[in-house]
Every structure is written in structure tokens, then in C-alpha cells.
């Protein structure tokens, strides 16, 4: 716990929170604009599902990049300040330090998810959606997205800690964002290999085309999908943690 608090202490003047808010502002502005235009064309389709599915598909682009930026900030401060040696000489197992950095990044992204949910709720209430605020839908949305985020953070943290040049971590985040955005175009078997595809894969709302019109459908996610993300994320986290624990600084 102390190690996690120390990570936050090191970040206090890094303006990470400002960066997260800026990112989310752009994402929600774009999503709300898109949903508002769709609602003005089809007022009968105004509902929570539309905004949730739009945000979920935009998360595929934005969150891998935001995760890459957040994780890079957490790792790069040690690279820039030449403090890895100092950190590794602390009376804490290296795996604990790695875990603290991972937890710090996850908590920051969880905060981003909460802000995103508040924005969705505010948008729905402001537009007077007929249905009441669907708390369970929002909870499922946050948990699905957060699960995908945790796996992506594990990958990003390994790269950003192991490779001093942050261009690689951010380049990977960029490729991840691109795959996340276009994942639904891939065949199912190919899509499931990429961890970034789970932002839409774990979404509790999806699109369905019927008779040439698009419908929003609430669905229950197959248990195999979250299991696959947990396995992928867990494996990458373990490899990263072991690699960084044995690495000569």
C-alpha cells in the first residue's frame, strides 16, 4: 500500500490527471456529438444503449493510447531521473515495486472509467432519456472496459519499463489503438488474439444490422472472453514482472 502511495506521490506534479481529463474531454465531446446527431435523425432510438456502444467503440482507439501515455509517465520518470537503481536497492522485493506501478496505473485508469461513466449518466439525464439510469449496464460497461484496460496496462508496463526509449511503448499504444478501433472488421478468430479488441468484445451493448437498419442490442458477454483477457493479461504481467525483477539496471 505504501509503495502505491509513493507512486502517486511521485506523480503529484506530473499533471497526469490533467492529461487524462484532456483525453476524456476529446473522446466524450466526439462521442456526444455523434450520438446527438444520430438522435436528431432517429429520435425514437435515443437511449442509453446508443451512448454506451459509441463510447465503447471509441474506447478501442482512445484507451490503448491513454494507457500507453499513463504507463509511460510512470516508468519514464524513473528512466529520466536515473532512479531505477535507487528504486531496486530499496528494501522491497522488485516484484512489489512492479506491482505498485501496475496498481497505480490501474487506479488512474479506473478513475478515468468512473469519469467516463459520470459523463454518460449526465448526458443521458440531460437529454431526458425515457429509461431510468441503468446502473447495472454502466457497471458492466466499466468492468468490461477495465478488464481490457488491465491487460493492456500489463503489456504497456512491461515495454515501458524494459525499454528506456518510450517511443516503443507509445508506438505500441498507437498500434493498439488502431487495432482496437478496427478490431470488429477482423474475423472472430483473428480478433481474439489481440488484447485491444476486447474493448468492444467485452462491451455489454453491441450493434446489430437487421433489414438494413442498425439496432443496439444489450447482450451478456460469453464467460470465455473475460477469461481469455485475464489469462492474456496475467501471462504478460507475470512475464514482465519476472523480466524486470531479474534485469540488471
Amino acid at each position, binding site marked *: 500500500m505504501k509503495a502505491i502511495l509513493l507512486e502517486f506521490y511521485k506523480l503529484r506534479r506530473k499533471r497526469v490527471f490533467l492529461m487524462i481529463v484532456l*483525453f476524456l474531454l476529446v473522446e466524450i465531446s466526439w462521442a456526444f456529438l455523434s450520438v446527438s446527431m444520430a438522435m436528431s435523425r432517429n429520435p425514437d432510438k435515443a437511449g442509453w444503449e446508443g451512448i454506451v456502444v459509441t463510447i465503447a467503440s471509441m474506447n478501442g482507439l*482512445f484507451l490503448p493510447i491513454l494507457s500507453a501515455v499513463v504507463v509511460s509517465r510512470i516508468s519514464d520518470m524513473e528512466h529520466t531521473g536515473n532512479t531505477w537503481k535507487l528504486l531496486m536497492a530499496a528494501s522491497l522485493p522488485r516484484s512489489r515495486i512492479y506491482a505498485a506501478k501496475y496498481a497505480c496505473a490501474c487506479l488512474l485508469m479506473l478513475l478515468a472509467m468512473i469519469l467516463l461513466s459520470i459523463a454518460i449518466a449526465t448526458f443521458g439525464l440531460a437529454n431526458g432519456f425515457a429509461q431510468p439510469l441503468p446502473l447495472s449496464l454502466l457497471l458492466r460497461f466499466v468492468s468490461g472496459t477495465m478488464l481490457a484496460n488491465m491487460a493492456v496496462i500489463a503489456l504497456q508496463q512491461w515495454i515501458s519499463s524494459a525499454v528506456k526509449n*518510450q517511443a516503443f511503448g*507509445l508506438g505500441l499504444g*498507437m498500434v493498439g489503438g488502431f487495432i482496437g478501433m478496427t478490431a470488429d472488421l477482423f474475423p472472430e478468430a483473428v480478433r481474439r488474439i489481440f488484447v485491444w479488441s476486447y474493448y468492444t468484445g467485452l462491451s455489454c451493448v453491441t450493434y446489430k444490422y437487421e433489414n438494413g437498419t442498425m439496432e443496439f442490442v444489450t447482450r451478456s458477454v460469453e464467460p470465455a472472453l473475460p477469461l481469455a483477457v485475464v489469462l492474456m493479461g496475467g501471462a504478460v504481467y507475470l512475464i514482465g514482472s519476472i523480466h524486470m525483477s531479474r534485469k540488471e539496471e
Partner: protein
Amino acid sequence: MLIKSLAAEWLKMRKSYIWSILAALPAVSILIGTANYYANKSVLTNGWYSLWTQVSLFYGEFFLPVLIAICCAYLCRLEHFNKNWYQVMTAPVSRSAIFISKLAIAGIMMLIVQAFFLLLYFCAGKVLGLASPFPIETVGWMSRGLYASIAISAVQLALSIRIRSFAVPIGISICAAFIGLGMYVMKLGMFYPYSLLTIGIGALSQESLTIAENGLFLAMNSLFIVIVSAIAIRYLSKRDVVA
């Protein structure tokens, strides 16, 4: 002085691994764009032009601005390490030479990226068996895209000089690219560097620009390059660097 600054900048980039990233991002754009074109061949019937819509959309909209941001952040990364800004500022070269040399190297890198992207586009078309002649308009899209890239490079370099973090200017670039998309939709694209890239590269519309539009495009990009460079050089001259 400028030649020596250029040589020094080039030396820093020559054997760096940044080239692998510069190659990977256009390759991914082409790969996914081509796969999407192949999957929707029945709808996309305009040969090379349809392929261009698929490969350039994400490349011009998101990948290239971020790639520029990564290059610019990388060009300033070494200076932010180990108090190297002090060494750079005490070297017998003018502040403008430092900035212009970095901008020129960013421009050369963008030229290489654009040429590589064009080559991949050509190869993708040939692999797909497109029989129509290669569209000459691509030269215009690529050269206008390159000029707009230099304007964005000036902005990103200014940010990367000011901000010590490697990641923050890149984060700003993706937000700026999205705002650029909004500006383009609102028909204000000519007044924003990130939308100028969308217009120049023909990512959303492949219609040719009129002579007046081409003139405005060149003028606006030149204006952004001059103004932002002047601000960045003034910042380097007036403010104490914190290394």
C-alpha cells in the same frame, strides 16, 4: 553553423531504433486498409482511389500526426536527458539553428515515411491486381501531406522543447488530431494545422483542390511554420532552460 547543427541532429537519429517505428506504423495502416478493401471489394469499385480511401483514412487522420509527435519528441529526448540542454545552449550555434535543424530532420523523416507509405500503397495495389493505371494524384496528396507534416512538426517540436515528458506531447497530438477532424467537418480545416494534413493527404475527400485552395493551403502551412518556429526560437532565446 546550420549545416553543423543538421549533421549533429542526423548523427543522433542515424542509428536509432526510431526507424523501426517509422516503418511499422505506415505498414500497419496499409495492412489493415488493404485487408478492409479486399473484404469489401464488391462495394469499393473505384480501383486505386477506393484503395486510397481505405489506407489513407486512419493513416492521415491519426497515425501520421502521432508519428510526427513521436519523431519530434524523440528529437528532443536526448536534450532532456542528463542535463544536455545546458550543453546545447552553451554550444556556439544560434537558437534558430538548433530549432531549424531539428525541424529539417523531422521533415526528412516525414519525407522518408511518405515515400515508404507510397511504395507500400503501390505494392498493395499490385498485390490486389488493380489493372487501372497508378493515379498521378497520389504525388499531389503525398507532397501536400508532407508540407502539412512540416507545419505539424513545428508545433510538436515547440511542445516537445517546452515539455520534458516524452508522452505528453504525443497525447496532445492525438487530441489535436481529433479536434482537427471536427474542424474539417465544420469546414474550418484550412485554419488548423492538423486539419490541413487531412485536406492535403486527401484522407476524407479525394477531390482535387482548386488553384485558390492550393494557394491557401500553402499559405496557411507556411504561416504556421513561420509563426510557430518564431515562437519556439524566441522561447529558446528568452527563457532559461531547465534540464
